[in-house]
């Protein structure tokens, strides 16, 4: 399997977001029913993932983190193999060893996923260094959260990338939360982009709930990285509309803030826009929803049928 080519029409962007949402909801329901483990879902953040990933070329590489379903699915990952991985089954992308938290899929160019917050930032320069020293064309996209931006690795990574001219597009998904801590309890500034400018790295903030705006900003930033061979940073402002890790009653979340963002749900708003602009009919929208639901149903059946890893996997791949 290879990376999915970028969407070439707005309907495909919507469809990808719907697939991510349906996938996450399958896990939410599965874990509520005790059939699946809880995960860190990306519900509410689909536009930020889909907009950026569709700005990339097949040869580009992605590093992501614990909240990765959107990046993986937008890149063309098989939801069946993803769900198998979440459930610890042998047909998962990582043979069931990763679970939901560190899913890498090298064949899709999604490499070195780590659930250590900040580790993606520490590894990205090396991935980019290999790209440039081995004469490979792709740029490196490093997704990280506003929380990761508080780790020291943020500073060390940006300084090195700027100093060594590494082709990295840093994408900060600022979703207002760092697990159970609101970003205003954790950051001296509103925006991670304000920190980036200190390194001489071009940085821009974009509405992360507007998939079209994200796509455009990401295309521009990716092009700049490609042409300059130097890092850029894009901050997508969005909101984690479910809890940190399923299940989570969100009792600590400010209701008005959440309601505000729910009213700007990226799927609802982009669908409305496509309908209003005549780019989508009600019938097409319904068909899209059906199609996505049936893909997820197939995926779920596949994952549930996949066996657990054999006992001899206990130590296999600990060493090369």
């Amino acid at each position, binding site marked *: 399997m290879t990376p999915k080519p970028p969407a070439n029409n707005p309907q495909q962007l919507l469809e990808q977001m719907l697939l991510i949402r349906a996938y996450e909801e399958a896990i939410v329901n599965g874990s509520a029913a005790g059939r699946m*483990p809880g995960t860190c879902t990306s519900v509410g953040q689909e536009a930020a993932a889909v907009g950026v990933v569709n700005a990339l070329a097949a040869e580009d590489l992605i590093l992501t983190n614990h909240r990765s379903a959107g990046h993986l699915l937008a890149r063309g990952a098989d939801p069946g193999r993803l769900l198998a991985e979440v459930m*610890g*089954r042998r047909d998962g992308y990582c043979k*069931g*060893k*990763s*679970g*939901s*938290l*560190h899913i890498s899929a090298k064949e899709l160019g999604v490499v070195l996923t*780590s*659930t*250590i*917050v*900040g580790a993606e930032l520490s590894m990205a320069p090396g991935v980019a260094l290999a790209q440039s020293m081995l004469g490979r064309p792709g740029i490196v996209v490093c997704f990280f959260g506003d*929380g*990761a931006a*508080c*780790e*020291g690795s943020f500073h060390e990574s940006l300084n090195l990338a700027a100093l060594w001219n590494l082709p990295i597009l840093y994408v900060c998904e600022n979703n207002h939360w*760092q*697990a*159970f*801590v609101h970003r205003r*309890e*954790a*950051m001296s500034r509103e925006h991670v982009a304000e920190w980036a400018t200190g390194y001489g790295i071009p940085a821009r903030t974009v509405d992360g709930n507007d998939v079209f705006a994200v796509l455009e900003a990401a295309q521009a930033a990716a092009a700049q990285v490609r042409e300059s061979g130097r890092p850029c940073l894009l901050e997508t402002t969005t909101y984690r509309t479910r809890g940190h890790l399923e299940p989570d009653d969100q009792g*600590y979340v400010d209701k008005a803030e959440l309601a505000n963002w729910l009213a700007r749900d990226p799927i609802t708003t982009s669908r409305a826009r496509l309908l209003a602009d005549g780019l989508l009919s009600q019938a097409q929208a319904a068909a899209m929803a059906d199609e996505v639901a049936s893909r997820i149903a197939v995926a779920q059946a596949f994952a549930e049928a996949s066996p*657990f*890893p054999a*006992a001899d*996997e*206990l*130590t296999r791949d*600990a060493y090369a």
Partner: protein
Amino acid sequence: MPTLTLYDAVGAALTEEMRRDHNVIAFGEGIATKRHELVDEFGALRVRNTPLAEGIIAGTAVGAAAMGLRPVVDLLFAPFLCYAMDELVNSAGKLRYLSGGQFSFPLVTLAMTGAGWGVGAQHNHNVEAWFVHSPGLKVVMPSTPADTKALLKTAIRDDNPVLFFLDIGLLYQPGEVPAGEHLLALGQAAIVREGRDVTLVSYGKTVHHCQQAADQLASQGIAAEVIDLRSLKPLDEATILGSVRKTGRLVVVHEANRLCGIGAEIAALVAEHAFADLKAPIVRQGGPDAPVAASYPLEQASVPSAEAITDAARRLCST
């Protein structure tokens, strides 16, 4: 006796110690959210959420401890201690000695560790032996809510940095906890079951596996003594040696990697100081030299089971 989970025993210890000593403060990534009752009682200055940055959380605790506060910091999962090693090992563990005794570092770090939640090796990695190996630090890992509360209270009063590990698999299991003030000295193991044929030494969740093994062994006519170390440094050498001198046989059990683990230390201790009383080889049961998978059956297989302990002990007793 009231019943508490281990998680709530931590809260109870924090509450009592923060009431007793206004220099005790607590901070970490979400502690003010998850233990909001502490904020309600002690205020937002003494109980704080922090940025997501383990290094500065630990470093701030070190600086504050040296200057008169008694911080307790929640570093969440043990592998995240990797981001705080300099602050804990090089600063907290060494700056008292290197300064000729000018400072002390009364601070406690909390970290969860072990199998149970299927979260994989970047959340589940038992690294307590690192800190036993490093000077200037104390290390505690209890197996019951009652011990958790008593040991945490003592750790908070200790003038040294204490690494306090919470076994994930035990976190929400309830247990009886005596009401009111109970303290337990660090460095005192508990003989949780007496026996004369073989000594089973462990800490954390595998203490319970040893107890199950002892039940199974009893039904086979073998009387196992079970020791819960509770604190890993200082280590209660006298209790371990006393038991092995009596039984002549030793099985050391833990979830952490066997190589250079606590089990190695205890086996070495016994081979040095109770050699003459040993009737059989020492047996270590520990995790393999591999990261822990998220997949449930693999995760479970990484922990020594009661059956494996029983088998090992029975084989020893037949030699």
